[in-house]
């Protein structure tokens, strides 16, 4: 039925879905644009993001400075471009870490079941009952805030969803003919997990990772806004906003653009994720 076609054409479906679903397509365009701007930031940025110009402090947006300048005379547009690199890097790496942990624990839990399953599921429950933002802040209080620590901390506190997802997929796949066939042919556990079960669980993992990047970007910008994330002088959307907070009465551009960039990025990832879910998941139709 639907499920058999789903297994064989996941990769092709993914491409088609991304291009044919209006939600996914608009999300894809937003993200691709921001990614390109971030990757080519050194070529696009009209100024050095860190160069201070005392003669150009708090200038309003103009043809010379598209997004104005900040309290130290730095070009906001250039800082936004370099900030995009940091925000996206943190978001993607953090989700990468969470996804790897989630896949491993979920696979072990769903494949071996028994007491390992119970232990891992309890661990998930425990992690979910500690308010995540408190947990992240507590860890950062004990370490020093740096972009690497932030990626690791966000990753280590957001793997629970993927774990449950992979486990549920594995449980539902076990007992299906192709799994039994592989078992009968003598496939080892490792092979069974990574070449038979995992590829057939990819769709929900991809959807949840894409949505995960959205929330990781929000968390990173929140941390940087609170001064506990990416540290100055390195630009991130969150800390550009913090710098702008002081000048909000007479320099609106310092607060408006970074917030808008975060909104657009998160919106893009959410649109892509939801769109892919709509297109790929037969249950959502």
């Amino acid at each position, binding site marked *: 039925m639907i499920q058999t076609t789903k297994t064989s054409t996941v990769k092709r479906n993914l491409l088609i879905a991304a291009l044919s679903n209006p939600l996914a397509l608009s999300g894809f365009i937003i993200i691709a644009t921001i990614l390109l701007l971030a990757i080519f930031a050194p070529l696009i940025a009209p100024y050095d993001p860190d160069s201070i110009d005392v003669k150009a402090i708090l200038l309003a947006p103009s043809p010379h400075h598209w997004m104005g300048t900040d309290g130290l005379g730095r070009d906001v547009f250039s800082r936004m471009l370099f900030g995009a690199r940091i925000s996206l890097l943190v978001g993607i790496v953090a989700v990468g870490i969470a996804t790897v942990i989630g896949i491993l624990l979920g696979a072990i839990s769903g494949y071996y079941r028994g007491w390992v399953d119970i232990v891992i599921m309890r661990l998930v429950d425990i992690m979910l*009952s*500690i308010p995540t933002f408190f*947990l992240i802040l507590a860890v950062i209080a004990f*370490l020093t805030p740096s972009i690497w620590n932030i990626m690791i901390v966000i990753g280590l506190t957001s793997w629970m969803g993927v774990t449950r997802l992979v486990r549920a997929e594995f449980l539902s796949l076990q007992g299906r003919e192709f799994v039994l066939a592989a078992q009968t042919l003598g496939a080892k556990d490792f092979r069974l997990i990574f070449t038979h079960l995992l590829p057939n669980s990819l769709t929900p993992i991809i959807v949840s990772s894409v949505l995960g990047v*959205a929330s990781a970007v929000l968390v990173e910008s*929140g941390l940087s806004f609170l001064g506990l994330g990416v540290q100055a002088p390195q630009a991130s959307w969150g800390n550009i906003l913090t710098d702008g907070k002081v000048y909000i009465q007479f320099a609106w551009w310092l607060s408006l653009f970074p917030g808008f960039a975060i909104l657009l990025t998160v919106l893009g990832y959410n649109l892509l994720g939801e769109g892919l879910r709509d297109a790929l998941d037969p249950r959502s139709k």
Partner: protein
Amino acid sequence: MTKYLLKRLFWMIPLLVGISLISFLIMHLAPGDITASEASFNPKASEESRQKLREIYNLDKPVIVQYGLWLKRMATLDFGTSFATHQRPVFWERKDKDGNVTPGMIQQALPVTLLINVLSLGLIIAIALPLGVISAVTQNQLPDRAITLFVFIGFAIPGFWLALMLMYWTGVAHSWLPISGMHSLNYEKMGWLAQMYDSAKHLALPVFISALSGLAGISLFVRNGMLDVLHQDYITTARAKGLSENTVVYGHALRNALLPLITILGLSIPGLIGGSVIAESIFAIPGMGKLFYDAVLMRDFPVIMGILTIGSALTLVGNLLADVAYAWADPRVRRGVLR
């Protein structure tokens, strides 16, 4: 019902032990030892007094013993005294021998955060429920599209940014609302009605900001839940026997769509509590979030550990309440047919 409740309470024990383990691990992440942080508040702290501190926090004992003592302190809710604020007790008030009472830090902050979170939950239900229902009933028509757009933007908008913008717009540009704190300076001298009005004005923005992401999430959840239910056979039956569309939607569908909402509201509690850091620190509300943020900035470890534990305990209590409410609302759960 009693049996169900006992079972749920029993399952909280391993969770509490797990939380104690994780918080213990975090405490040991700090490079060097945490007495260095106390010493940084008091540069004159001698090696001798630091040694004393190590003894108080049991840092001189083997790790296993340290964990046992930490578990004991968690169980008795004794988180010691704060490093940064003149040795104030972290959790609950303390009387000295002259009868002077020093109020606990969490004791004072917790009611504020609970008030804001309860108001946020109320706001979420009051707005998200009708939005979700309208969205489901008008599926793929204009109202549904508009609400879905609102939901996507609600998910994506950074709360701290919106807080800043609203604070500027309503507080600085127009002075409609106060920009920070819980009360005006002359609060004590007001009548109770004026006091209520004053508090409402101070809390309007913080409550709205902490409700924001929940608003979007719950609207979407109600919409999808309603759509699921509306496609079920008993709804077709209800329509077929000639019931009005209103009776079908509000009398039959909504009731069943509401059930899972109880669980989701329970699950949203850790997010609300954690999110209070941002809302409270922006609006200078003296709650748990602000207390936690200040403690993190000052590396006031006893306060951090205390709030982490109390925050997790609150989450567990919230989940328990949600499960009990669910069992009360759905007989299948309490008789053990489902789950």
